[in-house]
């Protein structure tokens, strides 16, 4: 029982990381209609920025905050100068551009800081705490809480502020939003910046246990994409729930299903996907996807 609870809590923690990346993907998709395969890679770059700063003696919290600022700017720049041209065109082409971006970012990181695994300091202590008679890792709880808080903040932004309203309007109908004077281009940049920031937070939280390397979030990207498919591109809540389920299930499967074990955990989301899709082709929560004619 103790193991079970631990696995669930740890699964919630990793699931939260996937959820953050998945949300970033959904955010970008709602604003600009494309899937950003470089979302994880952009997050890793931000973590490297934080890492470099911590090596210079900057306190971890400040370094992470700086990396968040960096990723907001970086996300905005990527939207404006790289993706803008491909946003109104064929989404498949845009995806290939993001794949190119991923390769470039991985290459830059590898060139600047090598492909070796780097240690990244943990925001939370590595101890455990007693909960209902079971030992659970502080870090897992901490990660989950941080991500939930960040998601809550984003939600508050979107629903409660003028900027959030503007971002939503642009995502729904950019031309119509422009008729009301909304600076669509600038708002898209903000959207991408926010998504990148979300990724940066997730990256900083998970880097201590994965160790920092250019390809650190490649696997997480796969989980995040599975969560997006399962949750549906139109449902942020669905995506988060799907990510948590994936995180928990893969942990449980790794221990309780011998064939899968630790190395084939990554197959779990897709087995789950396969099963769900047979029943519900549009994912667990989503509406039928909007087809761009």
């Amino acid at each position, binding site marked *: 029982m103790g193991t079970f609870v631990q696995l669930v809590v740890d699964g919630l923690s990793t699931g939260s990381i996937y959820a953050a990346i998945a949300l970033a993907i959904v955010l970008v998709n709602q604003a600009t209609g494309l899937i950003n395969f470089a979302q994880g890679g952009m997050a890793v770059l931000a973590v490297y920025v934080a890492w470099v700063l911590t090596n210079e003696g900057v306190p971890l919290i400040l370094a992470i905050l700086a990396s968040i600022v960096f990723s907001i700017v970086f996300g905005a720049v990527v939207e404006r100068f790289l993706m803008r041209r491909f946003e109104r065109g064929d989404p498949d082409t845009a995806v290939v551009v993001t794949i190119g971006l991923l390769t470039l970012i991985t290459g830059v990181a590898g060139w600047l800081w090598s492909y070796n695994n780097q240690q990244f300091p943990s925001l939370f202590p590595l101890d455990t705490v007693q909960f209902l008679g079971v030992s659970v890792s502080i870090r897992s709880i901490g990660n989950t809480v941080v991500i939930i808080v960040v998601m809550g903040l984003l939600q508050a932004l979107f629903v409660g502020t003028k900027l959030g*309203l*503007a971002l*939503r309007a642009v995502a729904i109908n950019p031309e*119509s939003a422009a008729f*009301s*004077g909304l600076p669509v281009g600038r708002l898209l940049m903000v959207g991408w910046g926010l998504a990148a920031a979300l990724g940066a937070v997730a990256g900083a939280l998970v880097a201590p246990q994965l160790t920092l390397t250019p390809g650190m979030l490649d696997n997480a990207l796969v989980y995040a994409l599975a969560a997006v498919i399962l949750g549906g591109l139109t449902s942020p809540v669905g995506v988060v729930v799907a990510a948590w389920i994936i995180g928990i299930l893969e942990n449980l499967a790794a221990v309780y299903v011998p064939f899968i074990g630790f190395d084939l955990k990554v197959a779990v989301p897709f087995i789950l996907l396969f099963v769900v899709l047979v029943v519900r082709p549009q994912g667990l929560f989503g509406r039928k996807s909007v087809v761009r004619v």
Partner: protein
Amino acid sequence: MTLLELEGVTASYGPVQVLDGVSLSVPDNGAVGILGANGAGKTTTLRAISGTVKTGGRITFDGKDIRGLRPDQVAALGIAHVPEGRGTLGDLTVRENLRVGAYLRKDSKAIEQDIDYCLDLFPNLQERIRSNASALSGGEQQMLAVGRAIMSKPRLLLLDEASLGLAPSTAKNVYDAIRRLRVESGIAMVVVEQNANLAFTLVDSATVLEVGRNVLTGTSAELKGMDEIRRAYLGG
């Protein structure tokens, strides 16, 4: 005082030339109609004004050349475009749609008052204030679209086919409200309409477009009397 002036405006979509030298003049507080059959270039003329299509020729607003400006920049100058198809933001509520209309403004108290004014102008929206715009009927969405446009306190309103897809009584309601708006606020208007009868209840003058060119221009009184108009657009 001419508020809006179009001279020899051209526009094309790829190789297809849609506007071939269109001219238009809207005085301050005036209302001008653009009539014509489908494909004549009426909608494209409005899009030329609001900057959603690349154009040649001259377009001046308040003496300033606005050709080549982005749509949001044109909106910031005080031109509000209610597009064909209404452009309501479906996943936002009625209130949120109206708020979006006021995006460029900073006077929050006055914005609330203006929302109340919109709801007074369009009472149907009052009870749907918290519904998502996509749940509204066609007529209600049209009213919402006009409401959102006037929330920015524009000097010029571009109305594209406001009666499209609406039952005659609903269309009349919409036009009644717009007429009242015109009287109470003095907003200038360019009104694209296929239903010339309806248009003449609102506009002082009109121009008729055919294959991207003006073929007839005159006051409402003059045009209403002409045989061609009567036959082509007023049903006999």
